[in-house]
């Protein structure tokens, strides 16, 4: 900014006449150079000459000069350098800068899919590009999580199992009365028909059930080769890896949200200055291709017309009569009830489907359909209900932007809560509605007859949801999008032209990603390989979506505000994470693990392994850890978090106030400048008028001289104040 002001100085030099403030002449008699016009250009913004170290070379790239001038300045700099004493510093900083650039250039090769996403942005704009950036973020997150899980849980299990260690029953556990719970034999028949093999693959049963994919295969290898003094506590590793995985995802999301939130806060949410921002920053100069730019221009026209229309509607609605307002609100309340009833019916359908599929026990193809019933109901509702909500929203007569936000919120609510309903139904059945004194739950604290290994069952449900989501996406691609394009391109009847080519809608696609990721988080504890499966699924999504984008889709006709929406999508992802965390915390601390399978089979809850392991440390660490976990510690922790919260919120409010103050100062400065310029113009006018009437000022000069002589002793009578 400094450089720009200096440049301003060069272009508009300060006028060369005595300044009004420092001289002894009165303002009225100030001389004006004859060539000065009324277009006076002051540079009030020029900074005072502070003692800047001239050793710091100005950053040439930031100067808004032509390249020829910049190179001339560069050459002058190069010649100056040997003379200045700290030239070694400058050379060092230069080489460091070059090194940073080269490093950045090399690192950019490691960015996944950089060219592909750039090409998408060039052809379809920032909104669609933000979907692919979000997808890339999730792919990297899942990949790193699967590495984490593989390193700490999977590989040690494989190693120990291959070394043929037997799982030991700790002597502290009392197993009388629960022998029936220990029976669990999922080993499949060795002779299998191919169709059974395929059915097992996609439903996670049979040979898939007793494998590393699910919780049930991991055992509680606890004490290792004593001679090496090496011991690896698998149950503890399993639990802590799951906890750390959640924490890692949380931190990644917060960091990414911080970046987008910072932009939103600085620009004040972007709500004000809509038209000017749209006109000057709305055009994406990176767009190429004639078709895209024509569409973008129509999009612009549409957007401006919609905004003007909204203004008109607002004016109109502000002038509605009382009866009209009341009827409008009554209509809105009624339609909201309709939407709630619709969503409620969906939840009921999901609950019933889940109960039905859990209790039926047929095999073969019919059994497969029954197993996938909850997934099918959820997917169908996620497709149908938002469509209906969109149609209902049209009747509600909100402004265009409110309609979009409302539709998104409803879709998010539907998706996440339907998953919650599925989980709730499962919980109901597994824990006999939380009441362990019920008939079915008596010996084992969970519904033993149906769920010999309930964690694996939950894992299987999540696995099926993930797989079904993937299959449906691919099926939609092949069976809906490609045929639609073929029909639209080759058949020129009016109906097909009205339907038109597929549009890549960003919001529903991003919500689908959020839903898949929530399913993976929920299932990660029970199906440790699920993040890895999800990584592969998302990578395939990238390629499939890219192909369908370029082959079948047209650019969106409605604009998409990518910056605020990025923050919104990360927020929704955070909600999904919270849902998964609640499930994790509940199942770790409240439900009794299965006796027949898994690494926690001999603890009353999964959490118990942690205090048991802490006891084995030396006494000071054990005491410290127990103190941290006790209730006594919660009070200082609470007080500390309150203090931190107060500090951060005070900081936020101070920053906000200073931003507002600086903005008003800016405005004030502009007005002051304008006022002073007007004053000077008036003075110019009066002085020029005096120039044309030489007689009158003579008397005035004498009186003025006497007046001034009275005040200013240093005034020289010989100096003629009249212009030359």
């Amino acid at each position: 900014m400094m450089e720009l002001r200096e440049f301003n100085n060069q272009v508009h030099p300060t006028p060369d006449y005595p300044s009004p403030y420092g001289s002894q002449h009165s303002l009225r008699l100030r001389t004006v150079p004859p060539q000065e016009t009324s277009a006076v250009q002051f540079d009030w913004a020029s900074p005072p000459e502070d003692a800047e170290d001239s050793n710091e070379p100005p950053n040439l790239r930031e100067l808004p000069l032509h390249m020829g001038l910049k190179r001339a300045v560069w050459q002058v700099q190069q010649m100056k350098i040997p003379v200045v004493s700290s030239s070694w510093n400058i050379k060092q900083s230069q080489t460091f800068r070059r090194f940073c650039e080269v490093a950045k250039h090399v690192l950019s090769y490691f960015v996944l899919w950089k060219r592909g996403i750039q090409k998408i942005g060039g052809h379809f704009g920032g909104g669609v590009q933000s979907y692919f950036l979000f997808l890339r973020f999730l792919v990297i997150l899942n990949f790193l999580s699967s590495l984490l899980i593989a390193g700490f849980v999977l590989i040690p299990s494989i190693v120990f199992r291959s070394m043929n260690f037997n799982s030991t029953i700790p002597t502290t556990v009392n197993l009388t009365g629960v022998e029936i719970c220990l029976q669990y034999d999922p080993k499949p028949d060795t002779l299998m028909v191919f169709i059974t093999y395929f059915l097992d693959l996609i439903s996670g049963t049979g040979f898939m059930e007793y494998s590393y994919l699910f919780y049930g295969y991991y055992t509680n290898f606890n004490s290792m080769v004593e001679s090496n003094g090496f011991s690896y506590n698998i149950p503890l590793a399993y639990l802590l890896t799951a906890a750390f995985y959640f924490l890692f995802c949380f931190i990644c999301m917060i960091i990414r949200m911080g970046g987008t939130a910072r932009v939103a806060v600085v620009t004040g949410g972007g709500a004000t200055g809509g038209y000017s921002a749209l006109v000057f920053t709305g055009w994406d100069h990176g767009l190429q291709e004639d078709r895209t730019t024509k569409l973008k221009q129509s999009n612009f026209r549409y957007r401006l017309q919609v905004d003007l229309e909204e203004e008109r509607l607002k004016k109109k609605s502000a002038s509605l009569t009382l009866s009209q307002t009341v009827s409008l609100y009554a209509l809105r309340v009624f339609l909201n009830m309709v939407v709630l009833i619709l969503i409620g019916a969906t939840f009921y359908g999901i609950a019933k489907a889940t109960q039905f599929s859990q209790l039926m026990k047929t095999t073969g193809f019919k059994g497969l359909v029954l197993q996938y019933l909850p997934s099918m109901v959820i997917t169908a509702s996620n497709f149908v209900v938002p469509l209906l909500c969109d149609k209902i929203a049209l009747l509600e007569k909100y402004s265009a932007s409110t309609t979009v936000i409302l539709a998104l919120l409803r879709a998010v609510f539907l998706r996440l809560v339907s998953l919650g309903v599925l989980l709730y139904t499962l919980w109901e059945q597994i824990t006999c509605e939380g009441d362990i004194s019920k008939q079915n739950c008596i010996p084992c604290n969970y519904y033993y007859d149906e769920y010999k290994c309930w964690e694996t069952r939950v894992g299987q449900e999540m696995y099926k949801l993930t797989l079904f989501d993937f299959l449906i996406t691919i099926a939609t691609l092949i069976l809906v999008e490609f045929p639609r394009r073929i029909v639209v391109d080759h058949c020129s009847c009016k109906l097909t032209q009205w339907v038109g080519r597929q549009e890549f809608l960003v919001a529903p696609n991003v919500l689908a990603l959020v839903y898949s990721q929530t399913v993976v988080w929920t299932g990660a504890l029970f199906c440790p390989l699920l993040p890895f499966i999800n990584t592969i699924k998302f990578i395939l999504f990238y390629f499939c979506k890219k192909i369908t984008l370029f082959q079948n889709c047209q650019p969106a006709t409605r604009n998409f505000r990518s910056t605020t929406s990025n923050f919104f999508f990360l927020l929704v992802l955070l909600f999904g994470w919270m849902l998964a965390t609640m499930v994790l915390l509940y199942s770790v601390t409240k439900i009794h693990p299965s006796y027949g399978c898994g690494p926690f089979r001999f603890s009353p809850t999964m959490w118990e392994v942690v205090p048991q392991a802490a006891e084995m440390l030396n006494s000071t660490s054990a005491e410290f850890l127990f103190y941290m976990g006790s209730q006594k510690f919660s009070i200082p922790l609470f007080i500390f978090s309150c203090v931190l919260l107060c500090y951060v919120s005070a900081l936020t409010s101070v920053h906000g106030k200073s931003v507002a103050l600086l903005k008003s100062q800016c405005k004030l400065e502009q007005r002051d400048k304008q006022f002073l310029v007007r004053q000077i113009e008036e003075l110019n006018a009066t002085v020029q008028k005096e120039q044309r009437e030489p007689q009158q000022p003579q008397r005035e000069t004498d009186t003025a001289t006497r007046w001034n002589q009275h005040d200013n002793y240093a005034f020289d009578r010989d100096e003629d104040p009249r212009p030359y």
Partner: protein
Amino acid sequence: MGNKQTIFTSQQLDAYQDCTYFTRKEILRLFHRYRDLAPQLVPLDYTAGPDVRLPYELIGSMPELKDNPFRQRIAEVFSEDGEGNMTLDDFLDMFSVLSEMAPRDLKAYYAFKIYDFNNDDFICRSDLEKTLNRLTRNELTEDEVRMVCEKVIDEADLDNDGRLSLEDFQHMIVRAPDFLSTFHIRI
């Protein structure tokens, strides 16, 4: 970095590196893009600093620019003669400012010059009307154009002189979060 290229002297490459946001490789790549527009006019040896100027028609036919409604203004602003005929220096300058590494203030300065059609250092109503027509391919009605121009000047003009100065423009850009990503041409 081996000095195997003979197009520029190493001093010239250093100067370009310090004056633009490009690395050596990118500068050479851009030189070849420039040359590809007119191989018979642009020599392969720039060590003597030849004065080669490509006419605007060639610049405006580049795939990155040919569909941009503001391509003529962009070429005029960055060319030394103000007519859109660009030397290699102008070419590098243009893509450096339009690259993703240029800071917001620099981009805002040039964006202001691009939208200032009559080059009077102010964006007045006629400049705004021309901008709007380019943005919407002349498909807005007179009334709508007038209303939008009024709204824009209302929102952005801080010193109330009926036109936007550079300071008004920069102040408005600060509040627009998408500016850095939209005022960006990938090459």
